[in-house]
C-alpha cells in the first residue's frame, strides 16, 4: 500500500471535531481542491485523517459587499480582494476514515486534526488505495449527512474515484460502488432514486 505520493497542500485547519473539519486557504490555492475530492491531514505519529470536501465557502466582508454594488470594478481591484485581502476561503471536509500505522480504517479517527494542521489533496494512487479498502465502509459517513446535497457529493466523488480506478486498470470498482449504494439505500426509496438519478449523469 502506498499512500505517500506528491503532497499538494490546499489549506490549513481552522476548526475541527471528530466527524468534520474546516480548513482555510487563499484564493490562489483554490485551483486544486474540488467538491468530492479526497484529502487528508497528517496528525503525526503515523496517523492521517481522511475526508471528502463537502463544501467550499467564499467569505465576504463589508468592503466586498460595498464593491459588489459598484458598476465597474477595475480588474486590479478584483485581484486585490482575491489575492491580497485576508479573507480565507473555507473548505469544509467530512471525515471518512483514517490511516494508522499504514492500515486504512473507514471509521472515525481517535482524535480530530488540530488548528493550523495542513490539509493535503490526495493523489490518484491515494484515492484508489483509500476507496478500494474494505467494502465501501466510508459511504455511511456520506449517507448520514443531513444538510448537504448528498447526491451531488456522491456524483463528484464517484466520478473522480471511478476515473482513478479505471486509469489503474480496475473497471469493476465503480459498478461495485453503485451496487453497495443500492444496498445501503434499499429502505429509503426516495433517496435511492435521487442518488441513482444523479449517478446517471456519470454515464
Amino acid at each position, binding site marked *: 500500500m502506498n499512500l505517500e505520493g506528491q503532497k499538494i497542500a490546499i489549506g490549513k485547519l481552522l476548526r475541527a471535531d471528530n466527524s468534520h473539519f474546516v480548513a482555510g486557504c487563499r484564493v490562489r490555492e483554490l485551483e486544486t481542491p474540488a467538491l468530492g475530492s479526497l484529502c487528508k491531514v497528517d496528525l503525526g505519529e503515523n496517523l492521517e485523517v481522511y475526508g471528502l470536501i463537502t463544501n467550499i465557502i467564499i467569505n465576504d466582508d463589508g468592503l466586498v459587499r460595498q*464593491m459588489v454594488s*459598484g458598476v465597474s470594478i477595475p480588474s486590479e*481591484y478584483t*485581484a486585490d480582494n*482575491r489575492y491580497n485581502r485576508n479573507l480565507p476561503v473555507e473548505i469544509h471536509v467530512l471525515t471518512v476514515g483514517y490511516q494508522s500505522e499504514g492500515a486504512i480504517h473507514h471509521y472515525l479517527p481517535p482524535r480530530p486534526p488540530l488548528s493550523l494542521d495542513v490539509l493535503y489533496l490526495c493523489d490518484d494512487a491515494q484515492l484508489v488505495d483509500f476507496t478500494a479498502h474494505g467494502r465501501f465502509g466510508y459511504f455511511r459517513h456520506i449517507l448520514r449527512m443531513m444538510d448537504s446535497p448528498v447526491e451531488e457529493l456522491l456524483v463528484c466523488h464517484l466520478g473522480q474515484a471511478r476515473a482513478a480506478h479505471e486509469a489503474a486498470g480496475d473497471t469493476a470498482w465503480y459498478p461495485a460502488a453503485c451496487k453497495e449504494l443500492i444496498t445501503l439505500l434499499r429502505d429509503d426509496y426516495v433517496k435511492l432514486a435521487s442518488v441513482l438519478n444523479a449517478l446517471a449523469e456519470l454515464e
Partner: protein
Amino acid sequence: MPVNYFQLHQNLEAYSQKTSMKAAELNTLEEALKKAFGEAALDTGATRARVERAERELPTLYCAKPTAEPMLTIRDAPPKPERYTLAAADGSQIAPNRHRPVQFCVINVGLIKAHHGSGLEPTTDIQSELMDQERLFTVEGGLIGEDTVGLQRDLAERRALLRFVENETGPVVTLTDGPLDVYQGTLAAAERQAPQAEVYEVYQKMAEMGVINAGYIDKPGSEMLTRMLALTQLPEGDLAGYDQLKRSMAGISDARLLKHLFTRTGQRSAIFEAITKTEANRGPSVQAHFFYLNVEQGEPYLARVEFPGWVSERPELVDLLHAVVYAESQVLETHPYPYLLHRAHELAVITFEERVYVEDMLLRQFDQDGLGLGRISNKEVTKEIAGGRL
C-alpha cells in the same frame, strides 16, 4: 445605565429649537455668500489681487486664492488613461501612554500601489517603526503627545510613499488622506518646522519625478472660500486691520457654498490656491492648490482634492488627476471614497490585540536584557478589568 437618558431627553427640545434657529441664520448667510461669490467671480483678477495684497499686508492668513481659472468653472470628469500607476499611503500609531508598563511609540504606514491596465493585483507593504527612545520625550521631559505623534505619522507616510513610487514610470498619482500639508494640531512652531521642511523636500522630489501627489479630503468642512470672500467684502482701507478670527461671515463651508453649481457626478470646481500664512511658517511651504469634486450621483457630495501648485500649471495633469481620483472614488460607489485609500487604511490600522502584542515583545526583550519592568497603572488595570480585557 451608562447615560442618564432622562436628563438628556429634557434638553432635546431646546437643542432642536436652537439648531433650527442656527440653520435659518446659516441659510441667510449662505445666500449672501453665494451672491458675494458670484460678484467676486465677475473679476477673478481683482479677487486674486485682493488676496495677494492681504498676503503681503497681514501677518497671518488662511484662505483661498483664485488661480487663472474663472471662479465659476465647472468641468466634467475627463476619461481616465488606460494605463497609470496609483499609490496610496495611510498611517496609524500607538502613542506612548504613561499608564502602560512600558512607554513606546509605533508608527505604522500601510502602502498600496496599483498598476491600472495591468490586470495584476496591487502591491502592498507595511512599514512599522518603533520610535527611538530619545524621541519619546519633550524638551521639558514629558511624554510626547498625540499632536507630535500625528505629525511624525504624516511625515512617515510621505517618506514611505516617495520610496514606494520612486522606480515607477508612466503617469503616477499618489494619494494620502487629508490635506497635503502635514498634521500640525496645536504644536509649537519650532517643533513643526523640521518635519514640514522634510515634507516639502519629499514633495520636491516627487515633483522632479513627475509624480502627482494629491491629498483627498472627504466631507471637507473648511471655509477657505468664505474667508476669501470676507476679504473681498472689506472696504479698501480696512484690509490691514482685518482679523480673520473676528470675521462675521462664518459657518458656511466651501462645499456648501459651491454645491449648487454642480449638476453631474464627476464634475470639478475651479482650481484655487490654499493660502496658509502663519507667523511661524517662514520656511518653504507646500503651496497646495485644490478643487472640489462631486463624487455622488443625484444630490452633490463634494470632496476636496489638494495637489501641488506645479500640477495646476499643466492642464493635462489636472485632467489626469481629476479623472483618476473620480474613477477611484467610484469603485466604492454606494459610499464614494478612493478605494486604495481605504485599503491603505486597512493595511495600516493597529488593533488593540496588536498593541498588546508589541508591548509584550518589548517587555520580553527588557526582561531578557535584565531591565527592570515598569508596571501598569492601577487606573489602567481597573479600566481593563472593567472592559473585560484582563
